[in-house]
């Protein structure tokens, strides 16, 4: 196990005990490595354990068996050391705090000084393009804006790893694509590795260096597809209509369904 990896998962299983001895295997012997600065998406149908895997990495849950390390440390230590930032499907902003108060929450909880917080919040507000909304409350923001604030909060302590559990799942399609564009830019600026859970194929393809395809009962990794559609500068809206993009989408779709999808647009038989 090398400490140079952002996330190292080897042979990890997670079984949930059910009633009357019936247990559910949410994950079975999963292996996964995420390099520093790499963007990896976890995709699969409901119940494939993608969220469970993310929660294991975040130490919100512990594996039944197997080894799991984040930056070479046990997951628990990485959590205590604040080595990662996390964003969920619900923005999860505190309704009684302003945008500023929400973004600086982790800094305040970990005892950062007032001036340090102020400076960091200013940077992050610029990054997410909400500088004019510093004093607004969450209920005054749209869903997309709330999610951007949640991402800024996740980035507050400049983590080298960002864990995202369907962060755009509750947004409409237009907002979603705009948020994806922004995330590409933010990731390029912060150089953070990302583990991104989604069930949208185009989203996974657009954002990721690698797409990890998972299947349920028991939850396991069935395929890993290299996407790498170019650097952040090339990933803009025109990429969404690019041949390579469609090809990658088709590839992920085939991996998800387990068979080649006939008649898919842009499938190359080379």
């Amino acid at each position, binding site marked *: 196990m090398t400490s140079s990896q952002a996330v190292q998962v080897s042979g990890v299983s997670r079984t949930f005990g059910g009633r009357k001895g019936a247990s559910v295997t949410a994950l079975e012997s999963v292996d996964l490595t995420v390099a520093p600065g790499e963007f990896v998406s976890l995709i699969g149908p409901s119940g494939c354990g993608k969220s469970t895997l993310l929660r294991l990495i*975040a*130490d*919100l849950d512990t594996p039944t068996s197997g080894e799991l390390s984040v930056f070479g440390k046990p997951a628990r230590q990485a*959590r*205590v050391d*604040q080595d*990662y930032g*996390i964003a*969920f*499907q*619900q923005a*999860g902003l*505190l*309704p*009684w705090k302003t945008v500023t108060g929400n973004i600086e*929450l*982790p800094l305040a*909880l*970990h005892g950062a000084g007032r001036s340090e917080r102020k400076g960091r919040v200013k940077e992050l507000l610029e990054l997410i393009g909400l500088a004019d909304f510093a004093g607004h*409350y*969450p*209920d*005054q*923001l749209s869903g997309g804006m709330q999610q951007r604030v949640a991402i800024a909060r996740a980035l507050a302590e400049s983590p080298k790893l960002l864990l995202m559990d369907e962060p755009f799942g509750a947004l409409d399609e237009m907002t979603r694509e705009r948020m994806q564009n922004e995330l590409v830019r933010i990731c390029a600026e912060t150089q953070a590795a990302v583990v991104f859970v989604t069930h949208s194929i185009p989203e996974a393809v657009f954002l990721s260096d690698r797409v990890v395809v998972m299947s349920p009962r028991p939850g396991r990794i069935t395929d890993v597809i290299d996407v790498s559609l170019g650097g952040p500068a090339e990933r803009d809206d025109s990429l969404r209509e690019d041949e390579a993009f469609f090809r990658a989408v088709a590839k992920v779709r085939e991996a998800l369904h387990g068979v080649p999808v006939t008649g898919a647009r842009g499938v190359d038989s080379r």
Partner: protein
Amino acid sequence: MTRRSAPLGRLALGALGIAAVVAVWEGYKALAPDTGVVIGGTTVLPRSTETAMPHVWDMVSRLSDPVIGTVGGDTMWQTVLDAGLFTLKIAAFGWIIGVVVGFVLALVMQRFTIAEAAVLPWIVLSQTVPLIAIAPLVRRWGSQITIGGFEWQSEHSVAVIAAYLAFFPVAVGVLRGLKAPDATHVDLMHTYGIGWWRTLFSLRLPASVPFLIPALRLAAASAVIGTVVAEVSIGLRGGVGRLIIEYAQSASSDPAKPWAPIFAAIAVGLVAAAFVGLLGLALKPYRRSEIPA
């Protein structure tokens, strides 16, 4: 979404409500037969005689007359005001004790699941015991307490009984409030690596405010009712409860008199509710989640 009405408009609406009650009272008195409406030997509508239903203005003017006779002595409003303040003071004590006890119980129940399972049924059960039954018990137990220079008075018994009623809505409401944060919020605090106490102060307590305010208001009303009822059943002099009993005896000769302490009881309740209203204003930033986004 309804717009918030201006303070003046709300005041006018309040006045209109009082006027409506007066109009119904006087209207019934003017229209209904003196003997009430009796069907098959059962009175279905009350009698509207001067004794049974004094005019509203008689009740009000009675406040400025002396308590007994026509000359000398305290006027009625002074007497009921004193009694109201006496009752308010005891109710406030009972409310504070009840809020503290309810809060502590809610915290313990939130922290330990076992405590919730063990304690919550008892809390619910406690409210099924009639107040009349526990009042003499509290007084008897209390009278055996002497710690240093402190001697247990009947006032203390009354405050304890008020607290007994007041703690219930607080315990239940705060428990709900402490459990109100989303799983996302709780997970987030866990990822920040902060413990139960800091999660309590940065997440659970602020999130419980929307549940806390109605609980405190209920507790205030319960404390006032508890105080008045306990004053009656313990026989404590000086408060509104005692006056209600005392003045009820002169209902036939002086029908407006029993209404004076009733007004006082209402006033005490209004003051208590207004105080909680002020608390709610002070905690307004934490009540944003009540307003849908």
